[in-house]
């Protein structure tokens, strides 16, 4: 079945072209085309994954030549389908399928309905290309497709300048990281002589690539992951990306785009594992990110922004897991997070539809008005908070267990992360777990608890919206069980190049600590927000903290003042002048100079045939003189 894996990205790509070209003439604006394409991919992906579960662990690799520029510079084109790709294929197609089904109801009547589905299909195709790519250049292609689609989708309602600005910000911020990613690709190519992931990893394992090159390449690749997966300090685009329609947020935040960064690190894991410095860097950045994002999530009024910061924080969990050697724990969390985060976003979308506002201060009491939405949202929220036995609990616990083992426990053989860093990850993980539960409780009480504070009378969403919610709620509740037992996700995604981790071990002490932190957070949140929105946010009593959080640690201001102003204030006019005056000046000058010259010279063309004849005669005489005097001798 793995031979058919190429269809999974190809079908959405075809769907994109079909919807774009003839979508408006198809029934329901072409939406069924996109849904059918991804549904077919979903079936194929599931078959592949069940094959992997059944024991077909060998990576299926097929490659051809894309372009050959002579020996030493061949650009390959191929796909690798192993356990990791199979898991990701299922995640991406599942989320994309239900997001698209949901969008049929959610986006009905939208001005650019057909275009929206075309973009969703292309976005999905981009992520699927990343997942199956066997070489870094093809991966970069999918990566960039996603980059441009995120720009289009976030700016879907571009009539509002704020949305257009958010789209530009997302594009440019991820672009900063992409620059590092591209440089990393070339560094690794320089070291390994190939773009193929397998051969790069082979070169790293066999020691053919010097450790300095590996460290540099891995650090640069991680820059790309920082940008795409919204890690500190490039996380600022993610909350602003909420300007897009809610299904887009769900797709970006759960399955595609942000997952790509984590996937990249997982895919290239042996390269990262070979460098202790980079693993430490990943772990430290992830620890910072998870804490600051969770703190920011505490003070947001916009329900989607709470979820956005929560995504940043949860992605940091995945990165932290990868940083402390928890390869399977990181991928496992990616898997479970996709379900509960997609669910939370889609449920939040249903709420936003009902109350016509993103602002939680205009919500409240919706549990009675929207019982199904509330039920599914509750499942997702508790999974996010890490309450047993929902999915988030299992994966988060595995991450914390890995951090504990690496930091305080017996240690992991051959792990390059230093113990101190692993200890930081563990502490940050526990604290973030507490903060997560706290903002989850705040979000739940402000949205669904107490009394309704908004306008009108909200009512339950329609079936087209509720069905995806219910399906994803089942996924969010049960996805964690794939991590249990002998034949668990950690064995599916093992590659031959990685040391086998064996089944996840449950550390009762870690479980107790994590659950205690989560429950404490939930209880504190309930105590604080049970009566709805307080007169004054509790944190406002700590003015320095409050203003810092309100200003998002001044990072946006820093970028705005430091980078954007410098670019728009000095660099942009300078380049504009250079382009207009020098480049265009040279081009226009060539034309203008010719015209000026011709204005004088054209009088030679007098129309007097006899003048021409005289010139001709003189010319012939001149040539005759030259020939006879010089050549003739």
């Amino acid at each position: 079945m793995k031979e058919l894996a190429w269809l999974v990205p190809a079908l959405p790509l075809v769907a994109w072209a079909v919807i774009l070209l003839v979508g408006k003439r198809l029934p329901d604006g072409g939406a069924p085309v996109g849904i059918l394409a991804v549904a077919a991919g979903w079936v194929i992906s599931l078959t592949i994954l069940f094959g992997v579960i059944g024991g077909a662990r060998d990576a299926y690799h097929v490659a051809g030549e894309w372009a050959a520029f002579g020996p030493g510079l061949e650009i390959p084109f191929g796909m690798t389908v192993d356990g990791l790709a199979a898991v990701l294929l299922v995640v991406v197609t599942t989320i994309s399928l239900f997001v698209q089904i949901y969008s049929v109801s959610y986006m009905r009547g939208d001005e650019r309905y057909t275009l929206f589905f075309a973009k969703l299909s292309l976005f999905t195709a981009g992520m699927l290309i990343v997942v199956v790519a066997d070489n870094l250049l093809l991966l970069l292609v999918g990566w960039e497709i996603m980059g441009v689609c995120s720009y289009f989708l976030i700016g879907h309602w571009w009539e509002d300048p704020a949305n257009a600005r958010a789209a530009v910000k997302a594009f440019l911020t991820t672009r900063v990281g992409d620059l590092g990613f591209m440089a990393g690709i070339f560094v690794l190519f320089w070291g390994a002589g190939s773009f193929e992931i397998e051969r790069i990893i082979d070169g790293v394992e066999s020691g053919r690539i010097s450790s300095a090159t590996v460290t540099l390449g891995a650090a640069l690749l991680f820059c790309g992951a920082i940008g795409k997966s919204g890690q500190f300090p490039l996380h600022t685009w993610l909350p602003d990306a909420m300007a897009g329609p809610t299904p887009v947020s769900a797709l970006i935040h759960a399955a595609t785009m942000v997952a790509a960064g984590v996937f990249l690190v997982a895919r290239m894991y042996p390269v990262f594992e070979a460098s202790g410095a980079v693993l430490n860097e990943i772990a430290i950045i992830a620890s910072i990110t998870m804490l600051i994002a969770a703190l920011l999530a505490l003070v947001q009024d916009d329900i989607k922004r709470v979820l956005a910061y929560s995504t940043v924080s949860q992605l940091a969990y995945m990165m932290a897991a990868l940083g402390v050697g928890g390869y399977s724990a990181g991928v496992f969390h990616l898997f479970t997070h996709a379900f509960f985060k997609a669910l939370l976003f889609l449920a939040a979308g249903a709420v936003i539809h009902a109350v016509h506002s993103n602002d939680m201060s205009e919500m409240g009491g919706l549990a009675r008005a929207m019982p199904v939405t509330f039920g599914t949202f509750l499942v997702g929220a508790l999974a996010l908070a890490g309450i047993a036995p929902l999915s988030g609990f299992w994966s988060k616990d595995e991450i914390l267990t890995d951090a504990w083992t690496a930091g305080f426990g017996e240690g992991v053989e051959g792990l390059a992360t230093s113990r101190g860093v692993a200890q930081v990850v563990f502490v940050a993980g526990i604290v973030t777990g507490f903060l997560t539960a706290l903002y989850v409780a705040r979000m739940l009480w402000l949205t669904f608890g107490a009394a309704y504070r908004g306008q009108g009378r909200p009512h339950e969403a329609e079936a087209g919206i509720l069905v995806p919610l219910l399906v994803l709620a089942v996924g969010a509740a049960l996805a964690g069980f794939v991590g249990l037992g002998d034949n668990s996700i950690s064995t599916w995604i093992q590659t031959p190049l990685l040391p086998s981790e064996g089944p996840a071990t449950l550390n009762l002490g870690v479980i107790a600590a994590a659950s205690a932190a989560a429950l404490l957070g939930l209880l504190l949140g309930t105590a604080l927000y049970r009566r709805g929105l307080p007169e004054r946010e509790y944190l406002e009593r700590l003015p320095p903290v409050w203003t810092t959080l309100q200003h998002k640690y001044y990072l946006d201001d820093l970028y705005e003042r430091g980078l954007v102003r410098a670019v728009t204030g000095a660099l942009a006019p300078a380049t504009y002048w250079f382009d207009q005056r020098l480049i265009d000046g040279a081009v226009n000058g060539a034309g203008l100079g010719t015209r000026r010259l011709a204005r004088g010279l054209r009088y030679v063309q007098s129309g007097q045939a006899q003048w021409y004849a005289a010139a001709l005669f003189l010319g012939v005489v001149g040539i005759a003189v030259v020939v006879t005097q010089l050549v003739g001798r």
Partner: protein
Amino acid sequence: MPLLYPLVFAAFLFSAGVYGVLARRNAVMVLMSIELMLNAVNVNLVAFNAYLRDQLVSGQVFALFVIAVAAAEVGIGLAIVLLIFRNRETVNIDEVDLLRW
């Protein structure tokens, strides 16, 4: 007869032709002057043919070709002049300057 005589004659004939082409205003006279130049060439060809009879015999053939081409040229030239006269009622060559800037 030495070669010099026909060559000097041809040179005078050619110079007269050049003068006519450059200086005469009447288009018919210009055409006739072109004939003079062509015939000066013919004289040269025939003279060299006689002078170098042992090595080559193509001078006369070339002269015949030139006569044929000259006849064709005059045929077309006169036709053009006729049409110009019909359109503009003049055959003054310096008044026909449509192809100028």
